[in-house]
């Protein structure tokens, strides 16, 4: 039974790190900074949470500490990405031709 739990945990761990790999790939290939923030932050949040879940399945005694790390990441990761996106928007910078919609400038009059 513990062997089966180990196997499931390892599979979940591989799935999580595959999401991390896709996030790194998106970070390299996306055209401008706003797309890179999306690709980098969303995939790494899911990837890290899946990896922590996989390790918790393999080592059930560590579950509490892993849950603490996961909850902390779940709070801080969207926050840091939002602050970064606002800073990138206000500091100007080049945006690619595919980035057309700018709701922050439309709704709040926030100049890029």
């Amino acid at each position, binding site marked *: 039974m513990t062997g089966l739990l180990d196997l499931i945990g390892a599979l979940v761990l591989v799935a999580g790190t595959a999401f991390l*790999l896709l996030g790194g790939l998106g*970070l390299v290939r996306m055209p401008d900074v706003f797309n890179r923030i999306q690709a980098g932050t969303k995939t790494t949040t899911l990837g*890290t949470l899946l990896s922590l879940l996989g390790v918790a399945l393999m080592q059930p005694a560590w579950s509490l*500490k892993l849950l603490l790390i996961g909850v902390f990441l779940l709070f801080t990761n969207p926050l840091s990405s939002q602050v970064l996106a606002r800073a*990138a928007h206000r*500091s100007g910078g080049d945006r690619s031709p595919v980035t057309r919609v700018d709701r922050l400038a439309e709704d709040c009059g926030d100049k890029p």
Partner: protein
Amino acid sequence: MVDLLVSVAGVFAGLAFLLALVRFLKGPTAADRVVAFDVLTIVSITGIVLLALVGGRAIYLDVALVYALLSFLGVIVVARYLERGLR
């Protein structure tokens, strides 16, 4: 089988680290570099947890928690600096 899968997970995390490092070195603007730094630290947290799993030492989880806290603070501080300058 389980050992092989954990090794594959380590290779994937290492490749993600290298790809984020490419963006960190190339990044045309400072915001690109900060995004890459954010991703680098999150991948590092997964790496530390993997190291704890392979080594069988639960003490590394505390290291991962403190690292998550400090990297979050670092990203917030650099983003505030980009937004307003030194004020």
